[in-house]
């Protein structure tokens, strides 16, 4: 069940990515529709985050190409926003909530300009949209997991993009934050923006997304939720046995670096 769309926001062609000679994504071909809330779903180590990172140009590609809005990422960077996993930064960093949200404006500012009043207003407005306005002056070291995630979302909103990639935004957040995030995504999608979310909870996936990508090293399915979230396809994604390819990858790594630990 791999459905292709016309005028996709993202087009991935023939994409293969390896870490240390072990494939993490194998021959991915997919297109994503505009204006949807898209879930990228699969077991741990299935390459979900890697797929987002390869679209954002953060990992080297072994083969294939990625097009965003039918162009190279470099030419449309200001229209694309990325929310890394919140664990990827040091939350003890000496910075305030406002400092972090303003980072969303840096890409537009260029080298010699400092954030102006207008940028601060945008940042405050974005904080309001995630219910964090009261925390603008707070140090980030004092935030809870859910608040950290909201700050990251506010930073992404401050980029005023059309396409958002979010890496596990629901991981380690409280129920209220989860609800706030999903409402925010619905609003964004109503405004014609596209949101791509890495996610691993199957139950909520049916409820949250209207389009789903099932991934486990290779692409299992790509299409609207009712057609993709079927027992058979999920079995294929999560099924006990890994694909032959994964085993080959495993063997390659062992042969090449017998005494090393895998990452």
């Amino acid at each position: 069940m791999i459905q292709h769309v016309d005028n996709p926001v993202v087009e991935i062609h023939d994409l293969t990515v390896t870490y240390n000679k072990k494939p993490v994504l194998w021959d991915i071909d997919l297109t994503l529709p505009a204006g949807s809330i898209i879930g990228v779903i699969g077991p741990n180590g299935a390459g979900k985050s890697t797929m987002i990172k390869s679209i954002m140009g953060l990992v080297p590609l072994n083969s294939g190409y990625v097009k965003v809005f039918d162009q190279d990422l470099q030419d449309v960077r200001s229209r694309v926003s990325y929310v890394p996993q919140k664990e990827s930064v040091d939350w003890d960093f000496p910075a305030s909530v406002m400092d972090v949200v303003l980072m969303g404006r840096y890409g537009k500012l260029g080298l010699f300009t400092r954030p102006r009043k207008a940028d601060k207003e945008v940042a405050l407005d974005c904080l309001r949209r995630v219910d964090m306005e009261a925390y603008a002056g707070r140090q980030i070291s004092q935030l809870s997991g859910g608040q950290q995630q909201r700050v990251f979302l506010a930073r992404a909103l401050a980029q005023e993009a059309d396409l958002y990639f979010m890496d596990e935004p629901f991981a380690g957040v409280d129920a209220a934050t989860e609800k706030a995030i999903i409402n925010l995504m619905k609003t964004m999608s109503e405004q014609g923006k596209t949101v791509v979310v890495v996610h691993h909870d199957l139950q909520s996936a049916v409820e949250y997304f209207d389009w789903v990508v099932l991934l486990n090293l290779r692409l299992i399915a790509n299409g609207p939720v009712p057609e993709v979230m079927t027992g058979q396809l999920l079995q294929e994604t999560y099924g006990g046995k890994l694909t032959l390819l994964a085993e080959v990858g495993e063997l390659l790594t062992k042969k090449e670096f017998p005494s090393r630990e895998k990452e």
Partner: protein
Amino acid sequence: MEAFWIIAAGSLVAIPCGLLGCYLILRQMAMVGDAISHAVLPGIVIAFFISGQREPISMLLGASILGVITTFLIEFFHTKARLQTDASIGVTFTWLFALGIILISVFAGKIDLDQDCVLYGEISYVPIDLWITANGTIMGPRVMYIMGAVFIVVLLFIIIGYKELFLTTFDPKFAAASGISVALWHYLLMGAVSFTTVGAFESVGAILVVALLIVPPATAYLLTENLQKMMLITAGLGVVVSFFGYYLAAWLDGSIAGAMSLVAGVLFAAAFLFSPQEGLLTRKKRMAFATNKDS
């Protein structure tokens, strides 16, 4: 007058070192500063061969290039050979440092350069190491000019690149995704560290440079949770360290660089014990207060 020049030279070294050190410790690269400060030696020697004299500009340039090569090698061994960062630092800087020592010892007889003058600049010589122009005018201590220039360059670098340095330090992935080159800012910062280290090295000596690069920023880190304040506190600490270090040395009649490093260490210990948020004793007191209130 002697006291003034030494304290001023100490401060001029401490401020740029400390400002760059703030970024180093936040990037968890404190020891890279140490590595760079040693690995630049062959750069200094080669620059000396090319220019033929101990002229500061070519030496700073040679050292800066070597510093960037050092950080490149550290990254290279880490990513390509999958060596741990600390091992990679250890391999790179000892090897380059040794190369510098060999270059000096082989050519020592022929040129006016020795380990002492390159490695162990001595801050107490600052007032007598004067810049005298060709027609005999005395312009004041040479170190003040070198470190003054370094100070201005570093200050401009941090002011112009503040938001890029802030973002690439806090969240490199997001920086890359928004089109800011993480590698470029990494190497610019490392270039600035090399440049500063070498200028400072020759002026005040090795131990003091490494101490000033790490200890004041680490102290400031304990005292505040705001990067701009952290940098201001670091700069202030640099001046305090130079001032009290000088008078401690005068009182003990001992090494000035040693006394300054010692003062920096004592201030760190004080911050560790008494910092309003993180201090060991402050926390104990707060906890005791809380338990008293409960009972």
